[in-house]
């Protein structure tokens, strides 16, 4: 039993971290309608920066208290991803159409390659020797805070401007909304959230490799947001749960089945697109009232 609990801590943390990443992408993809195919790069940049902070900068500054060090690492991770997001978005968002998707894809490849060649953070071997500062509590408190802040953010002036820009850019501009800064804010804030997730990750696994910036990692996060439902924060968390739970559940399955997990994700995406284009959360929302209605009629019938 104890072993089971111990074993389940890591997948749970991974779920929380993926959920934070997905929430960040939800703001970009579902909130602003921008396709970022390099979300994992911001996650990796945040992770590496946070690790570099806690390994090199923190001790150099004389900060050793774990709570403080972890808090500052989170800020370092979020801030570095925010700057990276700015670097990508400032030139690319002036362009129309799918250039942003291409640019983010290119940026992710460049980041991965760059990280492989920086020896002080481990190069291709990855960054090791990071203190275990993160914990379940850190992950889920952060997840809760991010979730709460984003749900509140939707109702702010900027949040409304972002959603309006997603739905119709020309109309938004005609109503005085600065669509460029709306898109920029969404992209940069979403990237910063990915960076925070990265900071949590490195201090949980005490390791990060350049593979974390890989294209396939970015695709997983896009899948989480799409499967869960692009327009909903709950949907992104649900999507993250599925993307972490499916491989975990398959861990005990024979190799032949287990190694096809990308096929299962593809099947889930096809299923979602066919039966519930607004994601699994909308399927849930539709099923719940129906069940209520059923029980109501059942009660009526028994009378």
């Amino acid at each position, binding site marked *: 039993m104890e072993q089971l609990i111990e074993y389940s801590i890591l997948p749970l943390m991974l779920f929380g971290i993926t959920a934070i990443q997905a929430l960040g992408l939800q703001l970009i993809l579902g909130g602003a309608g921008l396709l970022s195919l390099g979300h994992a790069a911001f996650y990796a940049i945040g992770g590496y920066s946070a690790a570099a902070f806690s390994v090199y900068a923190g001790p150099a500054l004389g900060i050793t208290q774990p709570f403080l060090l972890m808090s500052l690492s989170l800020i370092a991770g979020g801030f570095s991803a925010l700057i990276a997001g700015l670097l990508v978005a400032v030139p690319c968002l002036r362009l129309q159409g799918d250039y942003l998707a291409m640019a983010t894809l290119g940026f992710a490849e460049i980041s991965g390659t760059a990280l492989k060649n920086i020896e002080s953070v481990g190069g291709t071997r990855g960054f090791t020797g990071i203190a275990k500062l993160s914990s379940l509590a850190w992950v889920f408190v952060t997840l809760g805070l991010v979730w709460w802040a984003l749900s509140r953010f939707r109702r*702010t002036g900027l949040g409304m401007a972002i*959603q*309006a820009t997603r*739905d*119709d850019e*020309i109309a938004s501009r*005609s*109503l005085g*909304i*600065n669509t460029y800064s709306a898109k920029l804010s969404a992209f940069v804030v979403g990237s910063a959230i990915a960076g925070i997730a990265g900071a949590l990750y490195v201090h949980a696994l005490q390791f990060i490799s350049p593979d974390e910036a890989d294209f396939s990692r970015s695709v997983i996060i896009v899948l989480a947001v799409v499967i869960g439902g692009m327009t909903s924060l709950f949907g992104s968390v649900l999507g993250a749960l599925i993307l972490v739970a499916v491989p975990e559940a398959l861990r005990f399955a024979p190799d032949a089945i287990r190694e096809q997990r990308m096929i299962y994700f593809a099947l889930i995406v096809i299923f979602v697109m066919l039966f519930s284009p607004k994601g699994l959360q909308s399927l849930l929302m539709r099923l719940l009232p129906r069940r209520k209605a059923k029980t109501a009629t059942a009660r009526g019938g028994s009378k």
Partner: protein
Amino acid sequence: MIPLSDRKTTNVLLKAEKLTIRFGGLVAVQNFSLSVPAKQIVGLIGPNGAGKTTVFNLMTGVYKPNEGSVHLEDIELTARGAHIIARSGVARTFQNIRLFAGLTVLENVVAAQSWQRRGKSIASLLSWPSVVAEEKEFLKQAKSVLAFVGLSDYEEWEATSLPYGLQRKLEIARALMTRPRVLLLDEPAAGMNPTEKDELAGLVRKICSNYGLGVLLIEHDMKFVMDLCSQITVLDHGEVIAVGTPSEVQKNPKVIEAYLGADSLSDTNSLDTPTGDKLV
């Protein structure tokens, strides 16, 4: 000194002067001038493809004119960003309705004042009392604008699920939320039945008098335009062919030719068809 006193008496709000735009070799609008005074409804008519919507797009910053200028009183608007022009006080609606499909009716209107809020995002995240008060105030304004156009019962509806006529009204409400001084309406009565059109005409008049706005409208329904507008500009092939009061414009041979063709000059001397149906 004469121009100043002149301005005071006519009280011109929006003024376009000698606007020209070319798309490659095509001159879409040439030498277009027009003024919209406060509290008046000005019409812009012309056959399909005359360049009416292009004029709107030039005035609202969607396109940059090759030549000419646009002023709102003393503010130069020529070739400025669309959102800057909107913030200066020129609001518009669209020929093909452009509502925010993912938002409710109320949210559509709220989105239009998003940039007017003074509370910064961090403050609103933390729900500071001043920000909460501001949000409440804006919500109240949004609801009163919706009540003004008669959409109070639909606040929670998905914007695009509204009936067509109400979608047009919502677009007007949304434009009003930016606190404009001049409102540009692009075919507001298109696709409406006669009752809805009458209602809309009343609403436009009310906007004009209650809010003291200048209104410029593009419309194909001649009865609607002639009843509502004090001044009409007629556009054909990108050029102004007539300016005047409705009765002056109706009698103008150039206008009749543009609408009905050269042959019709002999058998018609008025644009007003017996049924008041649209001519184009």
